[in-house]
């Protein structure tokens, strides 16, 4: 027995040693991001006070027979708490509970596994042509017109929703028939820390050289930030998120977030920006910056979580990314009140080229990026009736804004702002998920933008709310720049042609085009980090072998397929 205790003691000691050896990474900022912070009592009292809500809303006729639908979501995420007061109330009024299954791991492979087993949930949000090819979805064209709210939302888009076999399968999620202006860039951009701009005297960098000059100057003056060594520029390369590594050249050439090709808007032909002179110069510039110590080699081997915790430490001065991908880090910085360490996108493009980062949200759809109901669905009509019920203005209003007086107050004729309590709740990812209906709203057909009377559908659509929620630091900064919101640093949102974007185009699985695309991406993924880390003298040589490998793997089938689909879409217009 004594021996046994001794062994256990040894094991514990040794594992402690091992743990302490590995835990000296960057500080645990992530903890805050994953902390749920839900108090069961909170949820219960919230629920009781919500009982009176939805008072004017008719329950669905079959609310007495509870039904659960499983919905697969292509994003990584967390399921809202079972005690969520809003979702519980909605379940009582409709009889419908939605069980979300969020993505774990790689989407491409997950989709393959689902199709291989024909193990479809009731509905799928995946933006994946393969489900349509496999016959996973039921056609909706006969059903949608029967539901008033769904019909109102989707009828302007019936033509674009119709796929090659003449059916409509997908209810687009990110769609607004009357868009609000864009206040912050949630899409791609070269982001820079606000403190860098402030210190440089509120300039707006427009070229790569200007951008990196600002970063270098700031780095030289501040070798550490809050005790952490300053990092000039980060390049996220973790799995599918490596668009941060591969996408910038197309934006420098003045394109939007199109995909893996650059489309000439005069001739509507696609070419590979990956091997363009712009790309060559871009990665050469990064190579120079690496050799100056602005970029660090481990940026290519870090995981997404490590990247977010670096950003959240406030020590990273710049990076290329898409706004939604860094929200987590921004929220942590905001709750730490490090407003000057938060980021803003700046209009970087080739000299003489107009930047085109923002899409004009003109109520267009991709045709693919939404929910489809599968043939395994227990009761498609009930699910559609539920979605239709959710689209009622009262319901949308309550989910997004909450209760008048308690969660929001009226400003002027059509304006609304949140109360500070609700704003705080919205900034806390865990509480927002567990105490509001936001997850359900986000992954169901929903109202976005402005209603016909000018009332914003939700807080993110409201200019009043945007202005009211600004920190004093941001307000001062915007005032000094003489702009109302940060997207005004970028060029006006651009109205995109009908084919846009290339990334949502359906490419047949196993086709020559799909293989060519995959090989091309693989080559880029492999060579770009090497190019950046190369000895500057070897750069040209390495670049040539990169270009040679791209052509050796013949990307033409992919370009042909994209060109064909562009031509098809442009003809339709």
């Amino acid at each position, binding site marked *: 027995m004594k*021996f046994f205790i001794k*062994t256990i003691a040894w094991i514990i000691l040794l594992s402690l040693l091992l743990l302490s050896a590995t835990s000296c990474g960057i500080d645990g900022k992530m903890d805050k991001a994953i902390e749920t912070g839900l108090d069961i009592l909170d949820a219960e009292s919230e629920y009781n006070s919500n009982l009176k809500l939805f008072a004017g809303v008719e329950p669905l006729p079959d609310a007495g027979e509870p039904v659960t639908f499983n919905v697969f979501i292509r994003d990584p995420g967390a399921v809202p708490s079972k005690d969520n007061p809003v979702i519980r109330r909605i379940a009582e009024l409709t009889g419908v509970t939605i069980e979300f299954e969020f993505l774990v791991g790689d989407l491409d492979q997950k989709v393959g596994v689902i199709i291989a087993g024909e193990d479809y949930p009731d509905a799928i949000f995946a933006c994946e042509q393969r489900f349509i090819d496999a016959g996973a979805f039921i056609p909706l064209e006969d059903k949608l017109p029967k539901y008033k709210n769904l019909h109102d939302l989707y009828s302007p888009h019936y033509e674009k929703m119709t796929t090659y076999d003449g059916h409509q399968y997908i209810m687009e999620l990110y769609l607004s028939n009357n868009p609000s202006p864009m206040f912050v860039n949630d899409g791609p951009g070269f982001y820079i820390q606000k403190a860098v701009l402030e210190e440089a005297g509120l300039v707006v960098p427009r070229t790569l050289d200007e951008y990196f000059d600002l970063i270098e100057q700031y780095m030289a003056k501040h070798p550490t930030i809050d005790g952490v060594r300053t990092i000039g520029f980060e390049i996220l390369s973790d799995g599918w998120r490596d668009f941060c590594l591969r996408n910038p050249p197309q934006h420098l050439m003045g394109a939007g977030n199109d995909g893996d090709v650059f489309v000439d808007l005069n001739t509507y032909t696609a070419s590979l920006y990956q091997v363009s002179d712009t790309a060559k110069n871009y990665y050469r510039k990064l190579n120079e910056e690496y050799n100056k110590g602005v970029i660090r080699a481990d940026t290519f081997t870090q995981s997404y979580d490590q990247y977010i915790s670096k950003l959240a430490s406030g020590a990273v001065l710049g990076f290329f990314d898409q706004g939604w991908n860094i929200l987590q880090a921004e929220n942590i910085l905001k709750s730490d009140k490090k407003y000057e360490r938060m980021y803003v996108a700046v209009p970087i493009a080739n000299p003489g080229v107009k930047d085109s980062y923002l899409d004009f949200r003109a109520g267009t759809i991709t045709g693919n990026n939404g929910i489809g109901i599968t043939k395994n669905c227990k009761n498609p009509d009930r699910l559609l009736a539920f979605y239709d019920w959710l689209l009622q203005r009262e319901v949308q209003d309550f989910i997004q804004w909450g209760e008048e007086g308690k969660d929001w107050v009226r400003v002027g004729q059509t304006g609304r702002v949140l109360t500070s309590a609700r704003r705080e709740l919205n900034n806390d990812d865990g509480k927002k998920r567990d105490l509001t209906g936001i997850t359900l709203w986000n992954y169901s057909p929903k109202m976005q933008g402005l209603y016909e009377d000018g009332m914003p559908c939700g807080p993110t659509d409201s200019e009043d709310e945007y202005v009211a929620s600004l920190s004093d630091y941001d307000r001062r900064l915007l005032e000094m720049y003489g702009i109302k919101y940060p997207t005004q640093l970028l060029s006006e949102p651009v109205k995109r042609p009908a084919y846009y974007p290339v990334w949502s185009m359906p490419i047949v699985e196993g086709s020559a085009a799909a293989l060519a695309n995959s090989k091309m991406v*693989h080559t880029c993924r*492999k060579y770009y*980090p090497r190019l950046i880390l190369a000895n500057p003298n070897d750069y040209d040589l390495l670049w040539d072998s990169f270009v040679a490998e791209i052509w050796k793997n013949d990307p033409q089938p992919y370009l042909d397929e994209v060109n064909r689909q562009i031509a098809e879409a442009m003809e339709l217009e």
Partner: protein
Amino acid sequence: MAIKELSPRKEFYKNLVKQKELVLISIPFFIYFFIFSYLPLWGLTMAFQNYKPGKTFFEQEWIGFKHFENLFTDPDFYRVMRNTLGMSIINLVLSFVTAIAFALLLNELKGRIFKRVVQTVSYMPHFLSWIIVCGLVSNILAMDGGIINDILVATGLVSEKVHFMGEPNYFWWIVGFTNVWKSMGWNSIIYLAAITSIDPALYEAASIDGYGRFGRMWHITLPGIKSTIIVLLIMNAGWILNAGFEIQYILGSNGLVLDVSETIDIFVLKRGFGRAGGFAFGTAAGMFKTVVSSIILVLCNKIAGWVGEEKLI
């Protein structure tokens, strides 16, 4: 009195009836293997079809060896084969040598308690999942606060931190040594068990003949566990195309080492379930792997027979 000879068929039925309990007990296993090992073989037909999900078997289009042709003309395939074999051989050699050496050394220890503790500690990592092990490895080897780099710099062995996870030349060895760390203790258990069955009289005789410690290890212990070593070698050689999956998938997905990290399993997964290949192509690649593995296994078994050891099958 002559014994009445039964015809073979009659004898079979007689035995069957006599051993009906045994037959009965084996039925669940028969069903298990039929469902989980033999029925799925039907899916291999996919490798010869232009398989489209959602269609029935009879609607599929048969295309013969097209997928195999594509497989053998794909340069990526040779790259992943090279990686698989490279890492496999490193793993095989390292894990054999270290496990045997460790068992021999452990066997020489005198303190019973110390021996037990060392053994327990050494096989604990076997129970850690790969995702945890990979987390440990990438933290230990990190440039930013990784303990190895800190030690290397502090002792002046290197002037600049080493980018372990981004250097293609190191990747196979990182995989190899991580495997050693994880499985050395566990693998040595079977050798330790084999060592205990060696007759102590042999050691005494060797001592009398004037052999020292290393002499006894070399002339008594090693020959004593030779058959165990050969049997394990055969079993492991059959797995030579299983270089592993998790560690390469988790640690090797960054662009810098992608070229040396992808094994055939990752290739099958990426092509089979990804957009670029499809199920049928993945099946063809997986089938190729199985066929080659079977051939190697049979060969190793033959070789074991030639060198005069017990054959496994």
